[in-house]
């Protein structure tokens, strides 16, 4: 990994120096920068924050928003909780799989999209719903899925 990346990580850790137990905050911000949390980065964070690397790894793998493997530029999270499920989430997932040629958990070859399923996004009033990075889309059907994907494909 490049020198400059390590420096950026150090800056993030420095930013939370005053906070008590900021491990989650640091991991979140580092992931925002690099899209995922590679092992060597986790090790570096552990060393710099003086936390056992097993702890850091344990935390990074516990939470579903932390990715320890490379993911696409856009992570699509489709809600499959019951309120979305009974409003047709299954078909939305099928449509996404078809359009992207991906299965759950996979990333496209061009590194653009990762398809994941998730629990309730808290927008069940417009079910079925999904999130692409931090934008939420509701009232999905085959056509909406195609339209929305087109926006990201450009």
């Amino acid at each position, binding site marked *: 990994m490049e020198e400059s990346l390590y420096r950026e990580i150090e800056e993030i850790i420095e930013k939370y120096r005053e*906070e*008590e*137990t*900021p*491990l*989650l*905050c640091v*991991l*979140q911000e580092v992931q925002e920068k690099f899209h995922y949390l590679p092992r060597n980065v986790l090790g570096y964070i552990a060393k710099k924050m003086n*936390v056992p690397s097993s*702890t850091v790894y*344990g*935390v990074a793998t*516990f*939470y*579903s*928003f*932390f990715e320890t493997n490379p993911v696409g530029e856009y992570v699509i999270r489709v809600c*499959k*909780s*019951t*309120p979305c*499920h*009974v*409003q047709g989430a*299954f078909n939305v997932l*099928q449509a996404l*799989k078809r359009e992207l040629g991906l299965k759950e958990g996979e990333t496209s070859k061009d590194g653009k999209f990762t398809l994941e399923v*998730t*629990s*309730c*996004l*808290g*927008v*069940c*009033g*417009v*079910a079925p719903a999904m*999130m692409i990075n*931090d*934008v*939420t889309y509701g*009232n999905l*059907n085959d056509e*909406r899925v195609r*339209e929305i994907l087109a*926006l*990201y494909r*450009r």
Partner: protein
Amino acid sequence: MFYRTHVLVEMTSSSVAFGAAQVKEALEREIERVGLKNEVKVLETGSFGASLPSPFVVIYPDNVIYAPLRVQDVRRVVEEHLLKGRVVRELMLAGGLEWKTSEFAFPFPLAKETRVVLRNSGFIDPLNIEDYIARDGYMALAKVLTEMTPQEVIEVIKRSNLLGRGGAGFPTGLKWEFTYKAEGQEKYVVCNADEGEPGTFKDRLILEGDPHSILEAMAIAGYAVGAREGYIYVRAEYPQSIRHLEEAIRQAGEYGFLGENILGSQFSFWVKIRKGAGAYVCGEETALLESIEGKRGEPRVKPPYPPQKGLWGKPTVINNVETLANIPPIILRGPEWFKSIGTPTCPGTKVFTLTGNVNNLGLIEVPMGITLRELIFEIGGGVRGGHGLKLVQTGGPSGGTMTPDLLDVPMTFDTLPKYNSALGSGALTVVDDTHCIVDVVKSFGEFFLHESCGKCTPCRIGNKRIVEILEKISEGKGTLDHLEELLHLGRNMKMTAFCGLGQAAPNPLLRCLEFFREEFETHVKEKVCPAGTCQLKSLQRTVR
């Protein structure tokens, strides 16, 4: 290329009748004219739900609604809002109600509604503290700091009999009193905004629409229990809530409602935000504390409870967002006023979120004690497509399953347990009779399987087995023994799981096995799914 803004135009047969197509054309024309064609994209969308004024136009990501938007007003919206970034208030839905309003089952308060916690949501600009102040904002904080002792504050909350709205219904006043009495110099107030229960989005609406009410309530709680610091734990899925809270904290600090010596008193209080990272179990209060402490969000052994040993081992009050939103009005209007709403044993209002197969999706705040019949058939406008009602899941998967014979039970924290159900978070998920019970129960099971933290075996393995067996049943490979095994698994999990997640997980399964026994048996005996969805789905799976 990526567009900075999307303009969504609702395009349904009824909105077309109101001229939505012409409005869309005009939008595109004007956007091109002002040279924003490469930055702003006009999209058609399906229905936004409830009976809203038409044509209905939403600007994303600003979340501003213009409705009804007439062709002759399009130019102003494009020039002012899209070009200059200035919202045109008088053209907005109901003259400036926010996007949030469209998440109400009805855009305007109904006769049945009583808005206490949603008193401001949709009516004020959440990013402007003066809007909040103009509606008695921070008056309750001023009152406790100038006129009341901490004991008096606790007494008022106790007398109001406010029960925690996070799901468990524990009396808030008692919780505050325990924390007040606990030994220790350092204490904390924590707001639980992890809202992960499927079908629930009330806390998000409050945080986005009225963030100051939560800050004010946390400061009051801090004064009452003797804390100087508060944390709001917000789930990562709510970026907008986080933005609104950050801005609210900044403004409250500027106006002196947070920080050193608030309103010239001896009391100082700060609030910080911590963001979740996608784990439902972190809504459980001790798992949430672990998460703030930078650890895996696994629940702790209780007791000790947080009021004794909470954040970093210090006495801590944890309250849900909706619970806190009730605090300022109770302080200002008194416990007797609060008790005049709802039922004697369960006073106040409850925000219900109508989700699933119901005509009017959205949320509604009504007095405690309302029945499901009123909620679903009057307010919700009935089951979608004229279908029959199969079941209503109350309080999300961890709550209870209500079957059509229970439509007239008053919805309160104390009555529902008598029917093996629970009010929980107030989520209502309506399932119509075109759905297969095995499929629905499996969907609950998959949720718990996905969200189990893996700390204890009954929950980690139990949920996996439940989903596997249900999968077999829906593929026509089930036997009567499988049904017995499900019962056995469910009962064991209830008794042996470590935390509330694993203990509640089998609830929908057990209740449905009992009430829909026949449908389960048809699946295993005749290998037929009466609703026809099991076969359909396994077919689709094999051709995938």
